[in-house]
């Protein structure tokens, strides 16, 4: 295994629900993130997938210290960054940067592209001497495939894909080791998505970056990730390499999710078995007891309501080994093949 750059253990974020204006009384909590663990190696990509409200964006915000966890730790090279403040926090921020989802709200419309990409150097002046900055910004523009002459332009003069490149350039400015990307391509058109994903791929090898890539699009996550974690209601329910998760899923939620993804091949529709989940995701203020997925699970039995399944390799797979032997938080984990083979992106 490569050197671990980020290690998250038992990460929790609860937002208190209060009642009353003067005498606030806590009446409950939104359990947005409810015990998440993972590790990220240098130069590696961890994909986190899940549906809206599963807490994946809250995890992203905690990783870059925009939200403070209620409990748990985030260790960057062994140091817990969740309790840092002031100078120490600022130093850590240099190494973990974020790329945002919406290229239209993530760039300050009143600042030039040069000011936006150069802002990291204003905040961390020790990284680049003043005289050097313009050249550094132009280098960054070039690295992300934009014309360095456009340094004095404003964000609204660029298209969505180009703006996302500007956001990536800003994230790269401090030469971080980790980039947290929260749905970085979901706001872009299909033909532009591929350009940005290729760019992120290239930058990863060029700068030895580790990515935490958060998305709801399972195909994109598979394309970019070395390992994948599937989140449901604030927890990771299954995690493994891309092959383990996509070709040998053992958690019913992962199976349902994968079977629901429309694949771009009309031949798949005849012989494809869809697992259609019933009902809606429960509210994070009122998480079911035991296994949180049991209210929508077709396999649920009494045990699921009583016992919280641990995220671990199910013992019956551990003995046999093979790709099904990966972490899965299900009492009745079973391998299933839900992704149709050989569906093509076109004839190529």
């Amino acid at each position: 295994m490569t050197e671990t750059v980020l290690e998250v253990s038992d990460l929790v974020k609860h937002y208190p629900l209060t009642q009353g204006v003067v005498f606030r009384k806590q009446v409950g909590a939104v359990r947005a993130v409810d015990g998440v663990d993972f590790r990220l190696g240098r130069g590696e990509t961890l994909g986190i997938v899940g549906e809206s409200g599963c807490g994946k964006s809250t995890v992203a915000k905690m990783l870059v210290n925009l939200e403070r966890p209620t409990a748990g730790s985030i260790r960057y090279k062994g140091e817990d960054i969740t309790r840092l403040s002031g100078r120490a926090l600022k130093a850590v921020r240099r190494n973990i940067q974020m790329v945002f989802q919406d290229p239209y709200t993530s760039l300050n419309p009143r600042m030039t592209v040069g000011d936006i990409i150069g802002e990291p150097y204003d905040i961390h002046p020790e990284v680049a001497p003043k005289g050097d900055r313009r050249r550094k910004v132009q280098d960054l523009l070039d690295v992300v495939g934009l014309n360095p002459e456009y340094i004095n332009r404003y964000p609204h003069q660029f298209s969505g894909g180009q703006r996302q490149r500007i956001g990536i350039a800003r994230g790269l400015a401090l030469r971080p080791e980790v980039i947290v990307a929260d749905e970085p391509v979901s706001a872009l058109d299909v033909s532009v998505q591929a350009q940005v994903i290729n760019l992120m791929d290239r930058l990863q090898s060029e700068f030895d970056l580790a990515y935490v890539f958060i998305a709801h699009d399972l195909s994109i996550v598979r394309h970019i990730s070395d390992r994948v974690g599937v989140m449901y209601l604030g927890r990771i329910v299954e995690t493994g390499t891309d092959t383990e998760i996509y070709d040998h899923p053992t958690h019913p939620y992962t199976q349902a999710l994968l079977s629901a993804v429309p694949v771009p091949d009309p031949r798949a529709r005849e012989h494809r078995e869809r697992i259609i989940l019933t009902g809606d995701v429960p509210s994070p203020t009122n998480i079911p007891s035991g296994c949180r997925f049991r209210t929508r699970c077709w396999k649920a039995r009494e045990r699921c309501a009583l016992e919280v399944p641990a995220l671990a390799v199910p013992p019956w797979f551990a003995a046999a080994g093979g790709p099904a032997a990966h972490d899965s938080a299900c009492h009745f984990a079973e391998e299933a093949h839900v992704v149709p083979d050989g569906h093509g992106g076109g004839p190529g």
Partner: protein
Amino acid sequence: MLLEVRDLHVEFHTRDGVAKAVNGVGYGVDAGETLAVLGESGSGKSVTAQAIMGILDVPPGRITGGEVVFQGRDLLTLKEDERRRIRGAEMAMIFQDALSSLNPVISVGDQLGEMFTVHRGMSRKDARAKAVELMDRVRIPAARERVRQYPHQFSGGMRQRIMIAMALALEPALIIADEPTTALDVTVQAQVMELLAELRREYHMGLILITHDLGVVADVADRIAVMYAGRIVESAPVHDIYKAPAHPYTRGLLDSIPRLDQKGQELYAIKGLPPNLMDIPPGCAFHPRCPLARDVCRTDEPPLYEVSATRGSACHFWRECLDD
């Protein structure tokens, strides 16, 4: 043909100039058929739909030419009150954002019932009963109790079902669904698409599905019309197009999506950006981004060549594209 759009042109007049959003679009849908209109933002796919429905904002929009023939009549020549009678009763639309398409201060039962009181002159009580029936039909659990609830009390998927129920209320011959599942999660998206397909079969309706999602199209469409810069660049039965696209843009789109069944190498990326609608390139609008482009593409606008009896491609070199 239930609906046939012929050579439709729509412009938008803005303070910076004229944006040519739709430039000679033609497509048709039969009863019981699903036509997917595929395109990226700015391709004109939604503007075409709005022109068909008659809900285009005029100004700034303006229909500058073409025909929309629905059940034998050209809708563009009808008076506004005649069109209003067709809207809702004969053709209905489903939007992407169900929350803002529903009135937040009226209960869903009353909103559904309104379709019957206004269009069919039913009493409130009968309309309420109809509303419950519709909610049952789009599989909203406990319809009888929930009919009194307000839109915000429903989840995203349930709201989209209510929108579908509303569109279905008067059993229209044609439904236009504009990115109906884009705002929904995958698992919910599957439920909603399944429901739509089923209802279409049951009522033998024509369905125009406007989307950018090649996966959704492959799942439900019978025919596909691919739009680029306000034109149809390829039109074909669904199986043909996925097997062998006859237009380089379609091919590029198909190649640029990552696959679910394997990790894959670097993605193919269509170079460049979609054109500015105020300054569409001459000749073939796709030529600046096209790997097959030659001199003729820069000067001559390709017509929709007949590839087969059911298939057309607006590429001078469609044979080459097909053989590739």
